[in-house]
């Protein structure tokens, strides 16, 4: 098999290097894109900062001070050099460094999205497996109906509904934010549940969890539908393959066939498509965070867009792109864990 005899470790390393290089190229493209877009979109930042009553001379002076009157390529060079020094500029609204504001808000978003992802996978995988195995049965139809409804319902609508029901009508859940007033988080990772768990602070853990339930559910519900359908389709395909019949012939139990023999093979298409769905999750977090006044990146971005706060928009876009590129890199690497044919050389 040609180069198949190469040392698997070397092969993995060269794969990693190639992927990281590709990721860098993508990120450079992103900086150009955010830069160009922010300079093409109508709305003059200098005018905005100076305020509506500022005179033309005042605005021109500010534009000069901000470097906005220099040629585009020069402005881009300054922008990239600043980026390399970790300088994403300052927020037009607060005057604070964008990087610091993003880092302050990042843990809230990571906690929200991470738990939403975990919850959707944990619920969707068993649902999809059962739906595939029970086919054809009423259960299968019910699950399909449920996932269709979940897919076709916008996330912000789910968020409003959950908020209206569990806070407005039932008063079961806290309204918004990450913690009740009066509680102070432990400064460790910034993930409140993890920090309070590590510190053994059960009151804080309960409060943080109570605040997480609704936004996590609002984000996860749509994914559960999509993920369950992907798993179901992948499982149906795998269950028809010859090696499943071999496992049956060998007397391996149905539960084990489903959970190991078939699921292992169904994970590859699942991870591929689920990875694409992550963009939707990022997008959904903007609206969900806004509905629940969640102090994360999503609500930060939405505010920045409404204020035409360009340094923040550019900074967040860059950050999200990095996050997305890193996630995709991890997904690519995970293929090699899931599919041994990509990892070990053929004999």
């Amino acid at each position, binding site marked *: 098999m040609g180069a198949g005899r190469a040392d698997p470790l070397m092969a993995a390393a060269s794969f990693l290097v190639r992927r990281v290089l590709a990721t860098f190229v993508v990120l450079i493209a992103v900086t150009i894109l955010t830069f160009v877009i922010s300079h093409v979109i109508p709305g003059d930042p200098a005018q905005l900062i100076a305020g509506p009553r500022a005179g033309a001379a005042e605005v021109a002076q500010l534009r000069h001070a901000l470097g906005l009157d220099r040629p585009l390529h020069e402005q881009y060079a300054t922008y990239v050099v600043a980026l390399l020094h970790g300088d994403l500029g300052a927020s037009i609204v607060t005057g604070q460094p964008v990087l610091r504001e993003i880092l302050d808000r990042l843990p809230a978003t990571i906690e929200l999205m991470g738990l939403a992802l975990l919850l959707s996978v944990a619920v969707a995988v068993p649902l999809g497996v059962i739906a595939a195995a029970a*086919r054809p049965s009423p259960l299968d139809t019910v699950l399909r109906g449920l996932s269709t409804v979940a897919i076709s319902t916008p996330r912000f609508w789910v968020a409003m509904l959950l908020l209206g029901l569990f806070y407005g009508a039932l008063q079961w859940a806290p309204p918004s934010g990450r913690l009740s007033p009066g509680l102070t988080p432990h400064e460790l990772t910034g993930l409140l549940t993890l920090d309070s768990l590590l510190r053994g602070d059960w009151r804080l853990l309960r409060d943080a969890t109570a605040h997480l339930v609704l936004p996590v559910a609002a984000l996860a519900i749509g994914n559960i539908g999509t993920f369950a359908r992907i798993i179901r389709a992948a499982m149906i395909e795998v269950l028809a393959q010859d090696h499943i019949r071999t496992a049956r*012939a060998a007397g391996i139990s149905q539960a084990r066939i489903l959970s190991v023999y078939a699921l292992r093979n169904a994970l590859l298409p699942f991870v591929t498509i689920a990875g694409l769905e992550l963009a939707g999750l990022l997008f959904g977090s903007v609206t969900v965070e806004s509905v629940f006044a969640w102090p994360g990146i999503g609500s930060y971005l939405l505010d920045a867009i409404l204020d035409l706060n360009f340094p923040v928009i550019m900074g967040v876009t860059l950050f999200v792109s990095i996050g997305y590129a890193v996630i995709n890199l991890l997904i690519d690497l995970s293929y090699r864990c899931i599919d041994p*044919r990509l990892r070990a050389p053929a004999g």
Partner: protein
Amino acid sequence: MTALALEVAEFTLDVGTRRLRALNDVDLCVGAGEIVGLIGESGSGKSLAALSIAGLLPKATGHTVAGAIRVGGVEGASRRAQVGFIFQEPMSALNPALRIDRQLVDAIRARRDADRATARQHAATLLAQLELPDPERVLRSYPHQLSGGMRQRVVIALALSGTPSLLIADEPTTALDVTVQLDVLRLIRDQARERNLGVLLITHDVNVVAYMAARLYVMYGGWIVEAGPTAQVLAAPRHPYTRALLASRPDRVARGAAIPAIDGFVPPLAAVTTGCRFADRCALVEARCHTPSALTVEGDVHIARCWKAGAGGSDAS
């Protein structure tokens, strides 16, 4: 007296949502330690018979059965444990995502009480018995890291892992390199002898049957149309279908001459026929062929299902 490895009695199978008749009144037996061939064209029902015996018919489309199947003296669902199945495609027959040791150890533990370590030890022994060099390396491998012949040996190991009474081999060598075909056949024969296993060997290839099997069944359109000792059936086929099948053996045809494929094709299950399924392809067909024919037996052992069995028989080829 030990139980027969396989007894199939008046077995009938209807498949699909329309419950089309796929197997008719199949009678078949395999003794312990005996290798029996089952031949017939594509679509004649060989695989469905094999899957029925092993209890592996796919549930999705549904099916109804009548008659009896007994493997190693065991009837009903528990007969599954008595059957080892060797599949045609060694690549697709093994799970691509799991190491060989996982697949073999699971199979061994599915049929007997053993801890992982014991089962793994047993798996290594099994692979060594199947003449696989370096069993430890094979156990650590994924299927794609093995050659076709090695994979087929692993498939055989899986089939033997449950200590069955009957081995069903459905086209075990068709997908293999010519150079390893003979090795795999010899291996199956040696294992059958050593373990006193009955073997039902399904194939298109008359030469394989001639090499391996003491007795032979010929299947056509879901019916057993002829059965008997291999030498006798090959030398003096009684059913016109068997004669046509033998005439189309590539090595029997003079070099350069066209292979006389049998005209027409196996009738689809939906085709309604009364009487002989071979009637629309048979040169000897006459009016009575459209009414069901009885089995005729010659010399106690050589069976054929044809109104004119024997007529123009041995001297026709």
